[in-house]
C-alpha cells in the first residue's frame, strides 16, 4: 500500500519514463548500476521497474544518510527494502561487498551507484572497484547499465524541494565479466555502457 503510493508519487514528481533499450524487464537476478546525481536516484530507478521486478530489487544506499531520522529509516527498511552499506570506514567486518553479496542471495537484484557519491553534471566520475568484485563473485548475475537523466535538475545537490521536471531512466544491454578481464578494463567497459545510453 505505502509502496504503491510512493511509486505513484515518485512517478508523478519525476515524470519518470523508463526506456528499455538493451534488455527487457525480467525477474532474473541483475545488478542495475547507474550514474548518481541526486538523492532521488535510487527511488526513481526502483519506481520505474515493473512491479514483479521491483519486488525483487533492492537499492543499495549509504547507511549514514538513511539512518539519520525515523522517516528515512522507515523508507529504507519498510518501503524500498534497501541494503544499507558503510561507505565511510569499511572494515573487514563491515565490508560493503559482503553486505551486497548477502543481499543478492539467490533471488534478489540490486541497484547500485558505482561512482560512490553524487556528481553534478559533466560526465561520469570513475567507477569504484566494488562493481568488479561483485561481477567476479557472481558470474551468473547480469550487470545492467542504467542512465538516469535530469534528476540533478529535479533535485540538485544541496536542495531539498524538488522541481517536477521530466526525468528519464534508460536500461542498456547487460554486461558480464569476460574470462581473464582485468578490473580496469571491466570498469572502463561499464562506464562506457552507461555513458552510451545518452540519446543523441
Amino acid at each position, binding site marked *: 500500500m505505502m509502496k504503491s503510493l510512493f511509486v505513484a508519487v515518485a512517478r508523478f514528481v519525476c515524470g519518470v519514463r523508463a526506456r528499455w533499450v538493451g534488455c527487457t524487464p525480467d525477474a532474473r537476478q541483475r545488478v542495475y548500476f547507474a550514474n548518481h546525481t541526486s538523492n532521488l536516484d535510487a527511488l526513481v530507478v526502483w519506481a520505474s521497474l515493473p512491479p514483479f521486478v521491483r519486488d525483487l530489487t533492492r537499492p543499495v544506499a549509504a547507511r549514514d544518510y538513511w539512518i539519520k531520522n525515523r522517516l528515512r529509516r522507515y523508507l529504507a527498511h519498510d518501503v524500498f527494502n534497501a541494503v544499507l552499506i558503510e561507505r565511510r570506514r569499511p572494515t573487514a567486518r563491515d565490508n560493503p561487498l559482503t553486505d551486497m553479496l548477502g543481499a543478492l542471495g539467490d533471488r534478489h537484484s540490486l541497484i547500485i551507484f558505482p561512482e560512490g557519491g553524487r556528481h553534478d553534471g559533466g560526465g561520469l566520475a570513475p567507477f569504484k572497484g566494488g562493481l568488479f568484485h561483485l561481477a567476479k563473485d557472481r558470474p551468473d548475475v547480469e550487470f545492467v547499465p542504467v542512465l538516469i537523466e*535530469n534528476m540533478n535538475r529535479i533535485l*540538485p545537490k544541496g536542495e531539498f524541494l524538488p522541481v517536477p*521536471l*521530466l526525468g528519464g531512466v534508460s536500461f542498456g544491454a547487460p554486461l558480464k565479466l569476460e574470462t581473464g578481464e582485468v578490473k580496469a578494463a571491466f570498469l572502463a567497459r561499464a562506464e562506457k555502457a552507461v555513458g552510451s545510453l545518452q540519446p543523441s
Partner: protein
Amino acid sequence: MNLRIDRQTCWLVGGVLALLVVSSLIGWALSLRVSGEPGRATVQNLNARIRAWWMMVAVFGLALATGGIGSVVLFGLTSFLALREFITLTPTRPGDHRTLFWVFFVIVPLQYYLIAVKWYGLYSILIPIYAFLFIPIRSAVAGDCANFLERTAKIQWALMVCVYCLSYVPALLSLQIAGYEGQDAKLMFYLVLVAQISDVMQYVWGKTLGRHKIAPTVSPNKTWEGLIGGVASATLIGAGLWWATPFSPLQSAGMSFVITLMGFGGGLVMSAIKRDRGVKDYGSLIQGHGGVLDRIDSLCFAAPVFFHLTSYYFE
C-alpha cells in the same frame, strides 16, 4: 460558478461525439484497407490519435459538467504538465532551481486561483508584470550570472505560453455578455472545438493534398494546401456553430478565422522551438499526439486573442 447545461450545449456535445464515432469508423475502415509499411504506420498513428481524442473529449466533458471550477482545475493541471515539458526541454542551471520552484508551485496555482475568482484586473497582469519581474530578481539572488538573460527569458516565455495564454481558456467563463449570461461554457467549448478542428483539418488536408511546404526548416508537415484547406474548413465549421455563441454567423466566421490563424502560428512557433532543441515532440503523455504541449500549442496562441476580441466587441 453556475453554468447552465442547455439544449445548445447538448447539441455541441452530441455533435462532437458523432464526429468521434465517424472518425473511429473511418480509422477502422482505413486499417482494413491499408497496405505497405509507411501507410500502415500513418494509419496506426491516426487511430492512436483518434483513441486519444476520445479520452481528451471525456476529460473535457467531465470538466464542463462540473461547472466552472472543473474547467479551471483541468486547465490548471494542463498548464502544469505543459510547463514541465517545456522546462525539461530548456536547459536551465542549478541557480534557477528555487526560481523554478516558485514558478511551479506558487505562480501557476495563483494564476488559476485568480481565474477561479474571476479577478480580471489581476489575472491579466500577474504573469506579464509581477512574475516577469520576480523571476530575474530571484535568479539574481541565487547569484549565477552565466547566460542570465537567456535563462530568464526562457522561463518567462515558458510561463507566458504554457500558463498565461492557456489560462485565457477558462478565463472565458468570467466574461459578462449581455443576453448570454451563464452560457460562457459554450464559448469555451467553441474556442477549443474550432482550434482543435483546425489542427485536425490542417493535418487531413496536408496529408492528402499537401505539396508546397510553408517553412520546411521549421516543420516539414506544414503545407500551404494544409493551411488553406484547414483554415477554410475550420472557419466554415466555426461559422456554422454561431447558434451556440453570442456572434452572428458572419462574426462567428471572423472569430473562427482568427482562431485558426493564431492556432497555425502557435503550432509553427512551438515547432521551431522543438526543432532548435532537436526533438520531435515535447513529451509522450498523449498516445499518437506526443506531449501535452504538442496538443495545446495552437490553443495557447488563439485563446488570449479570442478572449480579448470577444471582450472588446461583445462585453
